[in-house]
């Protein structure tokens, strides 16, 4: 057997979702990753950049450089791609509400590097609709958000033909609890909503519309049930092909291809026995590679320790090596489609297609995807699915090794000996970034900035394409916060439905839940009134799935729950706790800024005379930080290891009893 004669398919694009601290630090990381064989870049922006705030904005406190790189202006963007030639690079940017702005900055940097726009390749995620359902980095109401999305699409189709202007994401729907059927249905409904909007906006001549369809790509999740996931991707391709042929009359089969990138499932990664995540990640990768006819174009894998905190460079390298072993060492790429003709696979694909079509019809009768997001319908469906999943984990119907079975473990050398096994962002990074930003502001031409912002305002208000004036802003040295503020003034801000007003089924209420409910009721009686609980999501982190599930579970346990959704200031949380007379505050923070946020909330509570209300927190919180939080007075710290939500409820009751001398 001579390997030289075998024709192999080219491997997919290999990326790692990364970025942290500062543009300079992230640039160094990117260049290292590229030198180790990564073939594209996937930029993670920090939350202030994603939600349109400069690093020195009060809401950005504690968040700068945490979950990604802070990009405030063209200087940051230039530093991020220093010595990385954009003409040769394929860059994916996970950016949504501020996508037109970050693309404008990228274009302005390309101009400075002397690169022709037609050469640029890459992706802007640019799918705001899913942000209202999961992830939460939206800013504006749905209508202007869709308009910004379509402006970016119309612009790139005309000027940057090799760009993927939007990556319709089913990924985050799965993280929010979507079943495979829901993932298919809602992603396709989102794609339809966007394509319909592009058609309606009149910026693209009818004869070029199929080029738009041909540039739509998807960003998909792959969970541990890898056979079903493979079938899901085959179903995706067929549904998409039919849809664009029938609805948009796309004739060219190439433009009907279902093109997608993948990040495999992070929801299923565990904090307990985290080394097991390696096998999970590899199996999940099989789901999106096994079937040649439904193979991913680009893959990024999470690191084994994501449920513990930020991965280190070595952890990311390990994730990259998994892809390389599969693509380069195994014989996977030497064969045609392995699953064609399998009756088992075909039956499952048909089942998923039928289920998805049914749900798509339901969304259509409720007025389409945008209407179903505004009414809260889709969010409620997702919250319900997620509740079912967690209930199955609690009952053991869904087995997770090391979590609800086989919990006994030998000590792991990976996390032993005081080795925390995670990356710590330098606390200095935020201060340095702010100093750089303020120096940048002081040194720019204010006249040019003002003129560019006026032009942006006109474009936003008049409805003309937002990209040209955004590029003018980028060149002039406008900042992320300034760009966003102009649009906030024109479009207003939005708060999405939380979906936690799902109807309680009462079915399958476990003995454990009934016991907690009784204890909640009794304690309420002893304290003279029903127990009230405030669930707060402080800071810019929009990952609200955990908070929502706690809210639903709390309601089912008999608490009166006050939940105001995401992105609340510490002052607002403290005020709400006092106004609502709650017995306990439960915070949820996943961005890593828990220390700063808890400190601020404690101070606010003290200021308004409400420091007697006990505080608990849930999130991705390293042990050392948990200790510091408890020293500050936090009564309990819950992490992904705490999967038994009835037990969480029970300990909340205990804390309330103790705080009230019972």
């Amino acid at each position, binding site marked *: 057997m001579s390997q030289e004669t075998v024709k192999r398919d080219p491997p997919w694009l290999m990326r790692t979702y990364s970025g942290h601290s500062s543009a300079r630090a992230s640039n160094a990381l990117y260049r290292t990753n590229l030198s180790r064989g990564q073939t594209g870049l996937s930029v993670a922006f920090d939350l202030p950049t994603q939600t349109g705030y400069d690093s020195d904005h009060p809401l950005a406190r504690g968040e700068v450089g945490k979950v990604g790189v802070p990009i405030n202006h063209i200087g940051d963007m230039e530093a991020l791609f220093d010595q990385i030639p954009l003409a040769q690079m394929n860059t994916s940017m996970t950016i949504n509400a501020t996508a037109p702005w970050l693309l404008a900055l990228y274009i302005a940097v390309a101009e400075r590097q002397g690169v022709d726009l037609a050469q640029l390749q890459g992706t802007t995620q640019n799918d705001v609709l899913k942000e209202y359902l999961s992830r939460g980095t939206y800013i504006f109401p749905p209508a202007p958000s869709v308009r910004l999305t379509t402006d970016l699409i119309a612009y790139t189709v005309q000027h940057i033909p090799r760009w993927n202007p939007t990556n319709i994401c089913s990924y985050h729907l799965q993280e929010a609890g979507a079943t495979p059927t829901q993932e298919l249905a809602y992603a396709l409904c989102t794609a339809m909503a966007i394509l319909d909007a592009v058609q309606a906006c009149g910026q693209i001549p009818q004869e070029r519309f199929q080029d738009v369809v041909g540039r739509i790509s998807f960003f998909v999740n792959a969970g541990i049930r890898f056979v079903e996931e493979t079938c899901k991707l085959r179903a995706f391709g067929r549904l998409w092909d039919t849809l664009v042929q029938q609805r948009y009359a796309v004739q060219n089969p190439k433009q009907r291809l279902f093109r997608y990138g993948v990040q495999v499932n992070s929801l299923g990664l565990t904090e307990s026995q985290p080394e097991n995540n390696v096998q999970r990640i590899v199996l999940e990768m099989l789901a999106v590679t096994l079937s040649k006819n439904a193979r991913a174009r680009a893959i990024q894998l999470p690191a084994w320790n994501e449920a513990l905190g930020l991965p280190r460079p070595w952890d990311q390298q390990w994730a990259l090596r998994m892809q390389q072993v599969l693509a380069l060492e195994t014989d996977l790429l030497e064969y045609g489609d392995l699953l064609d003709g399998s009756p088992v696979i075909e039956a499952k694909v048909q089942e998923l297609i039928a289920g998805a079509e049914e749900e798509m019809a339901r969304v259509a009768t409720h007025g389409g995807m945008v209407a179903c997001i505004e*009414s809260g319908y889709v969010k409620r469906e997702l919250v319900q699915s997620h509740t079912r999943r967690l209930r199955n984990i609690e009952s053991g119907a869904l087995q997770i090794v090391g979590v609800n079975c086989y919990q006994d473990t030998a000590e792991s050398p990976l996390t032993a000996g005081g080795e925390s096994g995670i990356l710590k962002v330098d606390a200095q990074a935020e201060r340095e970034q702010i100093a750089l930003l303020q120096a940048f502001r002081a040194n720019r031409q204010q006249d040019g900035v003002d003129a560019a912002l006026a032009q942006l305002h006109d474009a936003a208000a008049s409805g003309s394409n937002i990209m040209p004036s955004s590029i003018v802003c980028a060149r002039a040295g406008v900042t992320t916060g300034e760009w966003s503020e102009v649009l906030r003034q024109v479009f207003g801000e939005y*708060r999405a439905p*939380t979906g*936690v*007003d799902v109807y*309680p089924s*009462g079915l399958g*209420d476990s003995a454990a839940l009934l016991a907690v*409910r009784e204890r*909640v*009721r009794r304690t309420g*009686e002893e*304290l*003279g*009134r*029903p127990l009230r609980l405030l669930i707060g999501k402080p800071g810019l982190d929009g990952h609200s799935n955990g908070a929502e599930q706690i*809210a*639903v579970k*709390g*309601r*089912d*346990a*008999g*608490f*009166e*729950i*006050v*939940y*105001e*959704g995401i992105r609340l*200031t510490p*002052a*607002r949380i403290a*005020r*709400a706790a*006092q*106004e*609502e*007379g709650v*017995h306990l505050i439960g915070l949820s923070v996943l961005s890593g800024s828990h220390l700063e946020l808890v400190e601020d909330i404690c101070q606010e509570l003290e200021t*308004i*005379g*409400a420091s*007697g209300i006990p505080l608990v927190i849930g999130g991705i919180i390293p042990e050392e930080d948990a200790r510091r939080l408890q020293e500050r007075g936090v009564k309990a710290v819950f992490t992904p290891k705490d999967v038994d939500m009835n037990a969480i409820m029970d300990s909340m009751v205990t804390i309330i009893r103790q*705080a*009230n*001398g019972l």
Partner: protein
Amino acid sequence: MHPPETFAITALATAIGRGERAALAEALNLLDDRRPAARGQAAELLRLLQHAQDNTRSQLIGITGPPGAGKSTLCAALITVWRQRGQRVGVLAVDPSSPLSGGAVLGDRLRMQTSADDDGVFVRSLATRGQFGGLSAEVWPMSLVMLAGFDVVLIETVGVGQREVDVSRLCDTTCYVAQPGSGDSVQFLKAGILEVPHILVVNKADMGAVAHRTLAELDAALHREHPDGHWQVPVLATSATHHSGIEALADVMEQHYAELQSQGQLAPRRRSYQAYWIHKRLQEEFGSFGIEQLGGEQALLAQLETQDLNLLDHYEVLRQGLYTRCLGSSASESP
């Protein structure tokens, strides 16, 4: 969070009068507290705040209507207008309790979106906790405490439809928000199932033709004098999301309030709310049998309406009496 000591109640009342938020929050907790000691203190507090009930500068406004009509968003838009006019606003927003668990998700606050540094707005959410007609039993005493510190006290009901009658018995001005495209509101109102509100609003006027049709239907069916007399029920179109028609709605609410005052109806109305509330709570606790023991509904209401009394005091007296009479035990062992 023990109930405050008796000597502290005077201080609490004073602090509420000064508009201190922490004091108001504590008072609301106290009114929520069903322990016997707390009940006595709550009665004491209301006695000290008696002037609030007679306060003829502050208005109690009820917002009701079916779920999904956009009540919370409309409330948020009204709050903005009132704040621009320099008025302080207290809100009591009611959401349904789960009949299965007794728990509740109190979500109205989310849509009211008030600024954290605006001391002129205070929102307390409540769960229905049983069957008080789309309201919570605590709403009435709580609204009295709020009257002591705010120019407008807004009560938003659950919006369960036919049982909304209660809010009109607790508020100076009741505003019904109709859902465009649904004929239910018109039918219920025509049939007398829903009590006629003082103001009818078709929100979501941005929905265009559907909203205009509903507006026309309501106008045709109900543009007439309110049973209270001397008030033509107006039918208004608003769009809370586009912030249109909100100023006009606030104006009409003010007009209705001025009308009540000029006709000298305000004080007798508030007395009748009190009578209604006491009757309703006794009915819930002791059923028709208990009401019969007190001479029947008509007699009880007539007696309560003529007296100038402290709400909770009198309620406790009647309640004690019923316990002793019916059960031969004292009320302190009550549920």
